[in-house]
């Protein structure tokens, strides 16, 4: 029934174009591989905003913090104690706190730009940006692991000791795949997929609701209103997901770094 209604709606007039992944490619200047796209501009904006905020809120740091300093200290303390110290351990977590904190706040601000009205573009819904962030994590945890024990022992440490000999090659292959392929792939795709899917969902409900209200009969106008209610609910949900994904990315980065630091995997 509803398919018929929507289908007939689509058949007459222009028809509703469902949003596709092509909506996310928005070059502002130039075209092709060197195009300056909307997410690039959003990313530059976010970096400027974060730098300004962090400098402004900590320049006159007081023992009794003001509002801005309280927010910054809360976020910093959350990453320093809640992620870095708990995951990496209290011995050498401090040198990774700057990396984790800047990663968290960069992802968080860029994700939140997905729902903040004048910008409304989650930077991480273009796969290049999560790949760049993942590359930093990837190089970091391999580098510290290899620097700590050397190349040969690093690969030897991948297999836990005390296994029967015939199973060692299998485990080694699995661990190599995990360390070099699965981990960076899932790290980048998780952030990308969540931001992409969430934004596509919002796009679908908002443009679909608008189309139904403008072009539909009375029943579809009501459904269009329902679609806007869903868009509102999903926006709230999206804000939750955006916080969660920034946290998860940082948490996993810390977990991988911690894995390279311990003696036995």
């Amino acid at each position, binding site marked *: 029934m509803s*398919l*018929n209604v929507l*289908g*007939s709606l*689509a*058949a007459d007039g222009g*028809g509703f174009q469902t949003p596709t*992944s092509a909506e996310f490619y928005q070059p502002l200047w130039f075209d092709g591989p060197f195009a300056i796209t909307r997410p690039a501009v959003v990313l530059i904006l976010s970096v400027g905003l974060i730098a300004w905020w962090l400098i402004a809120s900590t320049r006159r740091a007081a023992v009794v913090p003001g509002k801005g300093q309280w927010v910054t200290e809360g976020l910093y303390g959350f990453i320093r104690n*809640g*992620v870095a110290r*708990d*995951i990496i351990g209290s011995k050498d977590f401090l040198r990774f706190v700057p990396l984790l904190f800047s990663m968290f706040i960069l992802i968080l601000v860029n994700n939140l730009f997905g729902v903040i009205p004048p910008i409304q573009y989650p930077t991480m819904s273009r796969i290049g940006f999560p790949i760049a962030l993942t590359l930093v994590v990837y190089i970091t945890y391999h580098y510290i692991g290899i620097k700590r024990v050397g190349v040969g022992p690093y690969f030897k440490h991948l297999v836990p000791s005390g296994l029967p000999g015939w199973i060692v090659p299998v485990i080694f292959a699995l661990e190599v795949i995990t360390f070099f392929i699965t981990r960076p792939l*899932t790290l980048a*795709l*998780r952030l*990308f*997929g*969540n931001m*992409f*899917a969430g934004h596509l969902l919002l796009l679908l409900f908002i443009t679909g609701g608008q189309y139904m209200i403008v072009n539909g009969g009375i029943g579809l106008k009501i459904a269009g209103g329902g679609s806007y209610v869903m868009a509102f609910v999903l926006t709230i949900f999206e804000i939750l997901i955006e916080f*969660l994904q920034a*946290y*998860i990315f940082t*948490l*996993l980065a810390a*977990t991988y770094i911690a894995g390279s630091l311990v003696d036995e995997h």
Partner: protein
Amino acid sequence: MRDTKNERGTIVKGNIAILGYGLSAIGPGVGIGLIFAAYINGVARQPEARGMLQSIAILGFALAEALAIFGLVLAFVFK
């Protein structure tokens, strides 16, 4: 991708890869449910362990979710 009408209604056109995403979402859905059920159980039994359990639960959630994300991405890749 314009829908065409026949005498009985419409022919639904679309991308069957999206069905693959639906299938790939089943496993992670069950898995995430199990993870948070265990988390709730743990906190109910020992409320003071909440902070430690939370990061473990979210870590497990992130790992289980990866399969659904693969399905979503592949649904758009194989168009």
